[in-house]
């Protein structure tokens, strides 16, 4: 009995699926694959992350989400160093559990910088994660790893930071 009901439901679902596909297919537009454009979108996030990363240095009290004591992420993590995106998730003593880079970013904002922090799916949080990850590009995945050096040398001007005062 149960089998018959299941078979009937499956057949109806398939029919419905085909119908929806036939109706929607001609009007559904999908953007063509464009790696360069996709990368540009990532770099927009990285640039926003860079801006947030350097917000707060010397500008206490102006950015309650990020910092109320004048400290910015870049005070301790220039070039996104010592963030180790390649090592997360990992057990982090300060979090007291196996956590993610986003959780650690909020820990730094809340505990070190006395800011409010960001929702884990917010544009800001994703941008900061994008910046830290981009600045550590090329690092080999190494879950749980802890070290205090930046993983690779940034030669020349590196990522073109958009230095404009206390951004």
């Amino acid at each position: 009995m149960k089998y018959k009901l299941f078979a009937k439901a499956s057949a109806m679902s398939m029919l419905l699926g085909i119908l929806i596909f036939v109706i929607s297919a001609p009007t559904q537009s999908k953007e063509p694959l464009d790696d360069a454009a996709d990368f540009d979108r990532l770099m927009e996030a990285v640039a926003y992350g860079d801006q947030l990363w350097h917000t707060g240095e010397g500008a206490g009290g102006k950015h309650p989400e990020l910092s109320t004591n004048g400290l910015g992420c870049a005070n301790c993590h220039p070039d996104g160093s010592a963030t180790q995106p390649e090592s997360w998730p990992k057990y982090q003593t300060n979090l007291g559990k196996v956590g993610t880079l986003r959780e650690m970013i909020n820990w730094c904002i809340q505990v070190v910088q006395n800011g409010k922090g960001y929702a884990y799916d917010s544009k800001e949080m994703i941008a900061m994660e994008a910046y830290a990850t981009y600045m550590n590009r090329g690092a080999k995945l190494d879950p749980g790893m802890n070290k205090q050096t930046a993983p690779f040398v940034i030669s020349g001007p590196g990522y073109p930071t958009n230095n404009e005062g206390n951004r």
Partner: protein
Amino acid sequence: MEDDDKKIIVPDKKIIFDEKDKITRRDFLGLTAKGAAATMIAGVFAPSAGSMIGLGSVAEAATKKIKPFTFAVLTDGHLYDIKDHRFDGMFMDAVNMVNNMKPLPDMVIYAGDIGQSGLKSELLKGKAMLDKLKMPYKVIPGEHDWYLDMGKAWRSLFGDENWSINHNGVHVIGMNSIKIADFWTGPGLTPEQRMGRVLELECNSCGPWGVEEEGLEWLKKDVKKVKPDTPIIFFSHSPLWDYYPRWNFATKDAPEIRDILRKFDNVMAVHGHVHQVVFNKIGNISSIGTSSTSWPWPYPPVDLPYPNIRHNRLDPGDFKDGMGSHHLSVAEDGSGTMFYDPFNPSAIPEAVKRGVKL
């Protein structure tokens, strides 16, 4: 091109030192034989023989009339104009640490970056705490002290940016090493924008810094009549070697400074800026970094010339980890030993705790 061939290039293409400055194993063995046990006592040893510290001309200096003494070194407080800021407490803790030393050091040298944003209020806050020291102190500027008003407030509070004193047979020099070529007039930056750029460690539009021509001339004149067997202690905010230029862990005219100081038997160079334990030795110049009283900086992604001389991995949840004070003791033979005095002793490896011979 010819010059390039004489450089020793590390994997990141960064020049660590000139070929003519390289200390060979033979030099090492010869010097240790001459320097005898005095060099060995407090020295810290890197794994290879060529990485050994404490290669000053100790034996030759033994005949000089030097009265042993100790200087304390504080640096990089990065004070904010915010009431009861966390960094105020750490700055004062370091001052108290020095005031509780037994015996008291003869003098304290502050190696730059009292303030964070170049505000006079930040410098005044730091000066008020330094004035609580029981002994005299001298200050050199850091980039955070300088680029809001181009040193106007700093000079009004602390005097000359380049200075020297003679103390117990040792010549002590302090220099402003954070002078940057004008990058602000062209784009029409305001003083606040200029300061805002400089306070980013990875500011790539600021350019390298140094003592510049005026500083080099001052230094030449200052040491002209100082005898080569006089021990030199040289304070600058930035290191006298290309450690990691991207973060200005370098001084653009360090090669010229080293040339001017080359005539001396032993130069002990102490620098701020790097917020970490680090050491290098180039010819007659030992160069040692210092911990801050604000935050530590990660080690940049380059090989350390003396990998044993570094601090341990630090706990971001312990706001005082990796920070503290220092003292430099000069012995009768003219050699110096730098001691790190951390707030949290676990930050410093046991070998470094015994002191780094300069």
